[in-house]
């Protein structure tokens, strides 16, 4: 249901499908965290293009992983949420990391920022 891929330059792409509630979030949390702690990860892209439903558990999951990424100054981008999900992200202050684009473009954005540093 959830695909977790890592690019060569250390960006995790999490592709979510189906529904993301408390139960589903609890099942994938550790997996994503251990990938982040495994080494040179400097960004997480959450691809929600194929996600049918999300509640505030999704916010908890994403904010938690942003915390995991903080020591390495990792970046987070959220791609293509539905209109309802986008409202939830805005309520939670995550509106600024929402993008409507494909994964390649998002990888480019994170890669680009890193290149400048």
């Amino acid at each position: 249901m959830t695909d977790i891929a890592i690019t060569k330059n250390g960006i995790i792409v999490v592709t979510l499908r189906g529904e993301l509630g408390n139960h589903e979030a609890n099942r994938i949390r550790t997996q994503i965290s251990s990938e982040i702690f495994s080494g040179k990860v400097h960004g997480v892209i959450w691809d929600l293009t194929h996600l049918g439903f999300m509640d505030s558990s999704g916010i908890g999951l994403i904010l938690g992983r942003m915390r995991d990424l903080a020591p390495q100054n990792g970046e987070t981008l959220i791609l293509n949420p539905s209109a309802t999900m986008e409202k939830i992200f805005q309520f939670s202050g995550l509106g600024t990391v929402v993008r409507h684009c494909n994964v390649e473009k998002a990888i480019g954005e994170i890669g680009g920022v890193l290149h400048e540093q």
Partner: protein
Amino acid sequence: MNNEMTLSFVAIEENEALARMTMTCFITPLDPTIEELSEFKTIVSEAVTNAIIHGYDCDGKRKVTIHGKIEDSKVTMKITDEGNGIFDVDQAMEPMFTTKPLLERSGMGFTIMESFADNLSVESAIGQGTVVRFEKTFSPVTEKSRMR
């Protein structure tokens, strides 16, 4: 259309999806828009998750009950647990407030529910449980929007 139903289930995480699906099916005959439907589903999910996690600490024994009523295009829902209760409802409803940060609860549940519901009320007493009530009126489908 008028209709009424009650759903009751033990407090395990797996039943969050059951509650979302069942209540979504219940209101489908109202022909809601995709956004109205997903907002409704989100409110139910937040309230049920709260009841399971905070009300009952996922004990798998006690039951969450959802009562649903449809009167024309208005849906009224009541989500009840007989669990821990909320110490301070006003504080619980503040954005980002959570008693379970270690479980990565974002504290956004009530904010989301209040934004997506037409009227939301929370009644709670320590050791007696919590009742969340809300209404949501769905836009009547016009011939034009049906043809789209």
